[in-house]
C-alpha cells in the first residue's frame, strides 16, 4: 500500500518523482494505481463484504437474539458434533499425514509417485462424490450394507459416516504441508542422530518433529478449518437428523431454508470467526517458519 500512496501524495511533485523513479519502475503511475484499485476492490467485493455481511446479519436483531440462537439445543448439538468430528478427523489425519510424509520423504520404495498422486485425490474429487463413495460402500444397499445391518452397525446417517467422509476430504492437508518441507530438509540430520546412538523414536521426537513443527501446526490448522467447514461430503452421508447428525454447516443450511436468518448467520459467524483465527495463526506460523529457515 505504501507504494501506491507515495506517488499520489502531491500532484505538483509527481513529474519530478516520476523522472527519478523511471529507471526503477517502468509503468506510469496511473497504470499502477488502476491495477492496485482493481485488485483491492475485487478483494473487498468478493471476500471482505460477504464476511462482514455474515456478522451484520448475525447481530441484526441484537446481541440477545444472537446468543439465543447459539443457545438453542439443536445449535448446541451441531456445535458439539462439529467439534467431535474435527477432533477425531484432525487427530487421525495428523498421525497418518506424518507417517505418509515420513515414508515418502525418507525412504525409497516402488510406487512412491503413485502414492503422492493418491494423497492429492481428495482435492481433485468433488466433495459430493467423496460422500457418495461411502454411501455406496456402507449404505443399506451398499457393498457392506447387508453385513453392517446384520451386525447392527450404523455408519451412514450416523456419526461414523460423517467422520469417515471428513477424514477423506481433509486427508491431504497435513501430508501436503509436510512433504515439501521434509524433502527440503533431507535425511542427513536423522542419519547423524542415529549414528550418535539415538533410537528411531528418539530420532523422530528429538530431531524430525522439532524441524517440522511449524509446518505441522499449519497443516493441522488448515485441516481443522476444512473439517469444521465441510458441507458437501458430510451432507451426503449425514441424513440431516436434527440434534443428532447435523454439523454446523448443515445446521446453518436448515435454519436458512426455514427463513431463520439471524440464527443461521449466528452459527455461520462462528465458522467465519474460526476462519479469521486460522488466518491469524497462519500468518504468525509463516513468520516463524521464515525466521527459522533463515
Amino acid at each position: 500500500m505504501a507504494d501506491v500512496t507515495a506517488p499520489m501524495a502531491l500532484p505538483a511533485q509527481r513529474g519530478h518523482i516520476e523522472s527519478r523513479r523511471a529507471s526503477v519502475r517502468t509503468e506510469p503511475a496511473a497504470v499502477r494505481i488502476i491495477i492496485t484499485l482493481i485488485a483491492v476492490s475485487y478483494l473487498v467485493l468478493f471476500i471482505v463484504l460477504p464476511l462482514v455481511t455474515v456478522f451484520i446479519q448475525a447481530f441484526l436483531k441484537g446481541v440477545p437474539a444472537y446468543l439465543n440462537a447459539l443457545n438453542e439445543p439443536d445449535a448446541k448439538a451441531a456445535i458439539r458434533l462439529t467439534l467431535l468430528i474435527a477432533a477425531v478427523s484432525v487427530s487421525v489425519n495428523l498421525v497418518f499425514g506424518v507417517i505418509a510424509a515420513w515414508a515418502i520423504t525418507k525412504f525409497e520404495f516402488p510406487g512412491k509417485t503413485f502414492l503422492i498422486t493418491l494423497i492429492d485425490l481428495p482435492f481433485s474429487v468433488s466433495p459430493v462424490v467423496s460422500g457418495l463413495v461411502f454411501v455406496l460402500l456402507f449404505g443399506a444397499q451398499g457393498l457392506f450394507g447387508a453385513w453392517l445391518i446384520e451386525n447392527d452397525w450404523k455408519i451412514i446417517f450416523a456419526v461414523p459416516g460423517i467422520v469417515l467422509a471428513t477424514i477423506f476430504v481433509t486427508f491431504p492437508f497435513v501430508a501436503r504441508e509436510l512433504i515439501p518441507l521434509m524433502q527440503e530438509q533431507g535425511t542427513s540430520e536423522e542419519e547423524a542422530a542415529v549414528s550418535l546412538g539415538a533410537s528411531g523414536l528418539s530420532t523422530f521426537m528429538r530431531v524430525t518433529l522439532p524441524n517440522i513443527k511449524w509446518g505441522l501446526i499449519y497443516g493441522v490448522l488448515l485441516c481443522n478449518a476444512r473439517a469444521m467447514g465441510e458441507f458437501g461430503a458430510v451432507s451426503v452421508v449425514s441424513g440431516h437428523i436434527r440434534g443428532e447428525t447435523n454439523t454446523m454447516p448443515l445446521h446453518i443450511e436448515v435454519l436458512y431454508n426455514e427463513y431463520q436468518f439471524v440464527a443461521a448467520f449466528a452459527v455461520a459467524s462462528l465458522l467465519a470467526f474460526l476462519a479469521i483465527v486460522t488466518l491469524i495463526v497462519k500468518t504468525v506460523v509463516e513468520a516463524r517458519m521464515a525466521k527459522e529457515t533463515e
Partner: protein
Amino acid sequence: MNIEVKNITKQFGAFAALKDVSLGIKSGELMALLGPSGSGKTTLLRIIAGLEWPDAGQVFFNGVDVMSMTVRSRNVGFVFQHYALFRHMTVFENVAFGLRVRKGPDRASEAQIKERVMKLLNLVHIGWLADRYPSQLSGGQRQRVALARALAIEPSVLLLDEPFGALDSKVRKDLRRWLRRLHDELHVTSILVTHDQEEALEVADRVVVMGDGRIEQVGTPAEIYDDPATAFVHEFIGESVMLPVKVEGGAVELNSHGLKLDARGAPEGPATFYARPDDFRIAELHAQHLRGRVTGVRRFGATRRLDVEIDGKNGPAHIETSFPAGFDPRVGDEIGLYPERYRVFAKPETGS
C-alpha cells in the same frame, strides 16, 4: 581399532558404485579415500559406517563382522559433508546429543555432560560459541561443531565425508592442518573422503585412490605421487605429460630421431608414456634428447617457469616446468629435454 573391508560390491540400479573392493585400515591411522566424483568413495565410507548396505561383502571392526550391526551400535563418529547439524539446537545441545540419547548405566549426569561437552568445544576452539545456533556460525565453525559432536560419543572410528568440501580455500588449508594435529593428539582411527588430492596427500598417513568403483592404489602420499601404480593414478594425481607411444621389443621410441627408452615392463603394443613435468631435465640439443621449443617464460615470485612445446613422435605436447639458475631461455629458443623419471602404461592416451 583396525578395519577390514572384504569384497564389497554395491549397485545403485544400473550403476555399479563399488566393484569387489577390499581394504585394510590400521588402528590409529588416518586414511584418505581419494577419487573423482562417482568413484564410489562416499558409498564405501557409508557402508563402513552402516548408513548403507552392500550387495555383497563384509566389514570387520577388530576382526568382528559388523554386518549385523546398525549404525547405532557400531559406535562410529560420522562427520557429514554439509555437517548435518541439528538446526533447532544450540551448539552445546548438538554436541551433547550423543550423550543425552544414551540409556541405562551409560547415561551420564547433567554435570558430566556439561563437563564433557565444554571440554570438547574447547578442544576444537569454539567454547565461546556454545549458546549459538548453527545458522549463526560460519562454515569453518560448523565444521568444528560437527567434529566435536562426532567425538562426543568416543567413537572407535571417525569417518569424515568431504569434511572441507564446502569451505573456501584459506579456511580449508587451516582446518586440514588442524585436523591432522588433532589426529596426532587423539589417535582415533580415521577415514576421510575427499576429491581434493592436495588435501589427501597433505593430511593422510595413507591414501586410497579410487576410480570407477575400484581401488587403483593404496599407499603413502609419497608412494602415490612418486610411484603411481596405474595410468589412472598418474593422471589423477599431480600434473602429467602424456605421449602416445608404441612398445616394441621392450622399448618405446619417443621421437623420430631414435630416442629409445626402456618400456619398464609394459606389454608390447600401443601404450602411453607418462612423466611429471618436473621430471624433465633441461639438456643440450641432441638426437638422444627430446627437442623442445620455448613458448613462454613466466615468473611466479621466486620461481621461474618455462612453457615448452615438445615434438613427440605423434605431434606436439606441452610441458610447464621450472628451470635451473644460470639458464636464460628466450621465447623461440630450441632446447633439449630428457625425462629423468617416467612410466609407461599400456593404455591408450585419454584426453589432455
